[in-house]
């Protein structure tokens, strides 16, 4: 992969710059270099990585406590001493320690969110690309369908589908994916409408490439970065939507649980045991915030006009910031 940033190019068109930045991002060190240019994004990234790591390996050490019950630790407040590390965030209604539960819930929550995002990304991109490319009848049928889904109250859709299908994790994923898909359809279509006018698409057609090749070899790779940015933003939305479903009692159901479920059931105890809802709520907030921060970082990083902001200064500040001031060395 090209991580080189010394382009021999003398006329950096936007596209060239964009490719360059993507090239930089693709290489691991380039990615971290761009990331290190944004403190908040770095923290967000570190948080997400830690969270995922902890969600994967954390429960291995603590799992025994999270599924069984321990009524003596019922609603134990956080930072209870002498109860072991897993009770650091307190105990829940059945006396199960909250910390490992949060980590296990992180698995479900993140799995659901990632699956939803992945599913709607794939389906939405597929339809969006087709709608954008065949902008005639096929396209407008797809778009009207997307409009329909969009004007359908999303919670209503969720409730109806979950009532028909019963609230299992898979169905929750399907429902959320349906409600998110139109976003990707719209974005993908808008992008394709633009990309398909680019000359290289025309060029590929002129060498006789099939539509399939055009769509999936030429058009889709170009629009994916944009869609990934949207997706990272959507991760937060999905997590929030999932927790709203739980609040209304139609989301994931015990014994499976997510942060949303934990907040929703803990809300009954906000007055007596605030930590039941607080920690998972905080987890949602922080994760959603991190996803949002990463997404806005990505938006800057992939925008050739702005990406320089993220690269660390290579040399000490010379001269002055504003052009309005006379440079010291200016000879009069």
């Amino acid at each position, binding site marked *: 992969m090209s991580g080189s940033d010394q382009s021999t190019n003398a006329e950096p068109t936007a596209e060239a710059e964009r490719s360059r930045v993507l090239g930089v991002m693709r290489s691991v060190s380039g990615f971290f270099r761009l990331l290190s240019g944004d403190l908040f994004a770095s923290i967000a990234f570190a948080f997400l990585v830690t969270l995922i790591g902890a969600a994967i390996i954390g429960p291995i050490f603590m799992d025994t406590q999270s599924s069984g019950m321990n009524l003596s630790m019922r609603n134990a407040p956080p930072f209870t001493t002498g109860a072991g590390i897993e009770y650091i965030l307190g105990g829940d209604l059945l006396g199960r320690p909250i910390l490992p539960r949060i980590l296990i819930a992180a698995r479900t929550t993140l799995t659901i969110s990632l699956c939803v995002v992945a599913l709607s990304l794939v389906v939405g991109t597929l339809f969006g690309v087709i709608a954008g490319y065949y902008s005639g009848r096929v396209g407008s049928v797809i778009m009207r369908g997307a409009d329909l889904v969009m004007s359908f109250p999303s919670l209503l859709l969720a409730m109806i589908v979950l009532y028909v299908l019963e609230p299992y994790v898979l169905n929750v994923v399907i429902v959320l994916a349906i409600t998110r898909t139109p976003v990707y359809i719209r974005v993908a279509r808008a992008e394709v409408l633009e990309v398909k006018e680019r000359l290289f698409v025309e060029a590929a057609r002129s060498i006789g490439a099939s539509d399939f090749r055009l769509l999936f070899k030429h058009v889709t790779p170009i629009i994916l970065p944009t869609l990934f940015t949207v997706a990272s933003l959507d991760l937060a939305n999905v997590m929030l939507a999932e927790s709203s479903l739980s609040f209304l009692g139609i989301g994931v159901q015990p014994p499976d649980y997510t942060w949303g479920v934990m907040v929703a059931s803990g809300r009954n105890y906000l007055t007596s045991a605030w930590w039941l809802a607080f920690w998972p709520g905080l987890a949602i907030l922080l994760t959603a915030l991190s996803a949002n921060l990463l997404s806005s970082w990505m938006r800057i990083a992939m925008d050739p006009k702005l990406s*320089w902001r993220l690269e660390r200064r290579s040399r000490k500040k010379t001269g002055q910031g504003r052009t309005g001031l006379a440079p010291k060395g200016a000879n009069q």
Partner: protein
Amino acid sequence: MTEPGNTPERRAPAGDLLDIRDLRVEFRLGTRVVHAVNGVSLTVKRGETLVVLGESGSGKSITFEAVTGILDTPPGHVTGGSARFDNQNLFELSDRARRKICGRHIGIVMQDPLSALNPVYTVGFQLAEMSRVHMGMSKASANARALEMLRKVGIPDAESRFNSYPHEFSGGMRQRLLIAMAIAVNPELIIADEPTTALDVTVEAQILALLRDLREQTGVGLVIITHSMGVAAEVADRVCVMYAGKVVETADVRSIFGNAAHPYTQGLLNSIPHQMSGQRLTPIPGQPPDLANLPAGCPFHPRCGFARDQCRTEAPALRAFGKAEHQVACHFAETVAALPGATSKAGHGQ
């Protein structure tokens, strides 16, 4: 870059309207630093037309953006030099004072006529804005003046076009609009950045005629940035050739086309297709330089047929060559100019 600037030793004549000395601009793009302007010195006299010639990316636009204070900061930074307008160093002025000069006394015609017009306001509004802000005119008189300007730049049916939006105008008309805006408050200097590049030849001829008439009528100083040798030959009094953020040659238009002393200028002239089919063209070999990674010595040496060791280590300063007005930044200008066939074969008469 640290090589010595090519500061001209002569004092600016009294008639100098704009005097740029040793201007340096760089873009700090994180790890990369693009040296867009590397010690540009040039002057514009009152009532004179200076054409700044050079390939894409040679720093033509950035030079004048820096001078007029519309450079994107960050990432762009002026790191050295001065720019005097009417003997006032623009870099020493406050933003506000500078803005006054730049709109009022220096008119600027931006490079891309479509995107330089605000798409959501009518052309009348954008035109009248100039007189209202700079001359404090009332709305009505500003509108009247705007209408007059529209007529002056030759927009047909000006009244009915007054309330149109920029996108309803053709490329040539937009370019006229920008010119109308620049001349609306009677500036002393107009900087036109590639005023005809986006236009086709017939419209280009119209716009050039307009600019020429304008100068004749008002005596305004004119800086025209272009990469078209043809345009330069058409309108210039003096030409200034830029390469890699430096002025490599500056002279009156006839010397440039008849007696070019810099190998790059010669290369440009030779690249113009001007013969009937059959013969090969003689292009400049190689690629334009990477401004983030300029070669040491003369920036043109990797593409130059005359390059010697000196060129690879020592950057040539702008120096007088022949006539006083003719300056060139080449160690071997005399040799180059004397080469057979070096004189331009441009102009192929009919």
